[in-house]
C-alpha cells in the first residue's frame, strides 16, 4: 500500500511515516504545493493525506487538481483549520475524511484503513485477524466461524486495536476514538478500562487468543504472540 503525505511540517510527516511503516505502508512525502502536484501527476497512490495550509499554495487547489485529472485516490484532510466552512468545502471538493490537528497517529491509521476498505469495495469488506473475522458492513464478529455478540462500541474498539496491531495505544487515543470530541472534555479516561475488560472477557470466552496487553500506566496494545 502506498500513500502520499502532503504536509509542510516535516516532523509530523516523519512521525506519520514512521508510525505507518510497521504496518507495511509505504509513505512518500511532499512538503509543498509544487512538489505535491508533481507527485500526483507522476504516480498513483492508495490514499493521500492532505494539509490545507501549504507554504506555496492552498490544499483545496490540490483537491481541484485531483478532480480535474479524474484521479480516484482517497483523500484525508489533516488540518488545523477546524471551521465548519472549511470542512464542507473540503468534502464538496471530493475529500473523503477530515481530521483536525492535533490528532493521534492511531486514529489516522484506522481512518485510512477504513477509507481504503471503502475504496476497494469489490473485495470483501472483512477485517480478518487469525481466528477473528469482522464484517464491517453487517457489523458482525465471528471467532472460528462462531458468531460473537459484541456491542457497537466494542466492535469499534476491536477494529481500532486490530488496526493498530502491535502498537501501544494510550487511553486518551482510545477515548478519543470512541467518543470523538467529547473525550476532549474529560478529566480522566478511566472508562476505557471497563470497555477493554468486557471485550477481553468476551473474546476469551469465545475461544480467541489473548491479544490485548495492558501496558502499565500508558494504555493497551493488540499483540499476536
Amino acid at each position: 500500500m502506498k500513500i502520499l503525505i502532503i504536509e509542510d511540517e516535516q516532523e509530523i510527516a516523519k512521525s506519520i511515516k514512521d508510525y505507518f511503516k510497521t504496518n507495511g505502508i509505504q509513505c512518500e512525502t511532499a512538503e509543498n504545493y509544487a512538489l505535491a502536484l508533481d507527485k500526483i501527476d507522476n504516480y498513483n497512490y492508495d490514499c493521500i493525506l492532505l494539509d490545507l495550509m501549504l507554504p506555496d499554495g492552498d490544499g483545496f487547489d490540490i483537491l481541484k487538481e485531483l478532480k480535474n485529472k479524474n484521479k480516484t485516490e482517497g483523500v484525508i484532510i489533516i488540518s488545523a483549520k477546524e471551521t465548519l466552512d472549511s470542512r464542507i468545502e473540503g468534502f464538496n471538493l471530493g475529500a473523503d475524511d477530515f481530521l483536525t490537528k492535533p490528532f493521534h497517529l492511531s486514529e489516522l491509521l484506522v481512518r485510512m484503513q477504513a477509507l481504503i476498505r471503502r475504496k476497494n469495495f469489490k473485495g470483501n469488506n472483512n477485517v480478518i485477524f487469525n481466528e477473528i473475522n469482522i464484517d464491517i458492513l453487517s457489523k458482525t464478529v465471528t471467532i472460528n466461524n462462531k458468531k460473537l455478540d459484541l456491542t457497537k462500541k466494542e466492535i469499534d474498539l476491536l477494529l481500532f486495536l486490530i488496526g493498530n496491531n502491535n502498537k501501544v495505544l494510550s487511553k486518551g487515543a482510545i477515548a478519543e476514538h470512541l467518543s470523538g470530541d467529547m473525550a476532549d472534555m474529560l478529566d480522566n479516561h478511566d472508562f476505557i478500562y471497563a470497555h477493554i475488560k468486557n471485550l477481553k472477557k468476551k473474546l476469551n470466552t469465545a475461544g480467541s487468543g489473548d491479544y490485548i496487553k495492558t501496558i502499565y500506566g500508558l494504555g493497551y496494545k493488540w499483540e499476536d504472540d
Partner: protein
Amino acid sequence: MTKKLLQKTTNQFLLFSAIVLLISGLIFYYITNYFYIEETDEFIENHKKEFVKYQLPTFKISDVSLWNKYNKNEILIPSHRVTKDTYFTKIYYVQIEEEKQPFRELNSPIFIEGKPYTYTVKINIIKNKHLVRSIAKLFFIIIIILMLGILIIVKISSKRLWKPFYDTLQQIQGFELDKNKTPVFISTKIDEFDQLNKSLSKLIEKNISIYKSQREFVENAAHELQTPLALFQTKIDTLLQLELSKEQSSILSSLNNDVSRFNRLNKNLLLLSKIDNGNYLEKNIIILNDFINKHLDFFTEQAKAKNLSIVTEFNTELSITGNSSLTEVLINNLFLNAIRHNVMNGKIIIRIEDNMLTFLNTGQPKLMVIDKLFNRFSKTNPSSQGNGLGLAIIKKITELNQWQINYAFDNNLHVFSIKF
C-alpha cells in the same frame, strides 16, 4: 414611552400656534371692544349735539314731560347731576327682552329757560358675552384650520424629507457584522443625512475590517497553536511504541495527560473567542429533552467511576431556540461540572420544567465565592483537572442567548439552573 422626532416637533408647533392664537384672540377682543365703545360714544355725542343745536333754542320747561314721555333713551332730568359731559357703561333691565343689558350713557349739563337740567342719552351696546363668544368661535375655527394644515403639511412634507433617514435606519437595523452584507445607503440631497450616511459607511467599513482581522487572528492562532500541539502529540505517540522502563512510562503517561489538558485548554479558549466573534449566530429550535437523552449514555459511563446515579426529571418537553453546537457545549459542560465536583456514590438530578433546566448534584458543601464562580480561570479546587473555563463558557453562552443562569447551594445540593 418614546415618541417620534416628527411628532415631537409637530407637537411643539401646535402648542406654539395655540398659545399665539389665544393671546392674539384676547388682544383682538380688547381692541375691538375699545373701538366699539369709542364709536358708540361718538354716536351718542352726535345725538346730544343735534339736541343742543336744533331742540334746545326753542325748548321750554313745559315741553320736558312730553319729551320724556316719547323718548325712552334720550331724557331730561331737572337739576345738575353732573357738571360736565360724562360717558359710562351701565346695566339696565330691559322690560321687553326680560333681561339685563349693558348701555352706553352720556350725561351732560344743559340749561332750559335758565334752569339747570341733565341731558341723558343712552344706547344699547352688544353684550360682552356675545362678543367674547363670537370671537372665541372665530378663533377656534382658525386654530383648527391652522392645526390641521400644519399636521397635513408636516405629514406630507416630512415623510418625503425624512425618507432617507428612515431608509438608513432600516439598513442599520438589518446589519449584522458577521454576515457579509454591507448596507448600501441611498444618496440624499440633504446635507445632514448625507453626512450621517457617510459617517455610518465609514464606521461600518472600519468595523468590518477590524472584525475580519480579528477573525483571521483567531484562525491563525488556532493554526499556530495546533501545529505544535500536533507535533507534540504525534511524537508522544511515536515514543509510546518504544521499549520503555517503568519510570519512562510514567513520565510519558503524565506527558500524555499534559498534552490532552493543553489541547482542551486551547480548544476552550478558541471556543470563547469564537463566541466573542459571533461565529455561532445561526439558531435552530432544539428540544432539550432529546438533547440530554442523546448524551445520557456517555455521561452515565463517565459517572460510573464515582458510582454516581443520574436521575432525569422531565416534567415537560422544553423546546428552545439556540445554536445547536453551543447548546451542546452548554449541556456537556453542565454535565461534566456535575460529575467533576461530585462525591463518591453521589447523585445528579437533571430537571426540566416550564422554561427551566436545572442540574442538581451532591458535592462538597464548601463553597466558592459565588460572584467569582463564572469568571474565567476561577477554580475552587486548584488541584482539579478542570481548567476553570467550563463555567465561563456556560456563562458566555447563556449571555449570548439572553438566558439566565443561577447558582445556589440548597438542601445540600449544588443547583445550577438556566431560565430560557
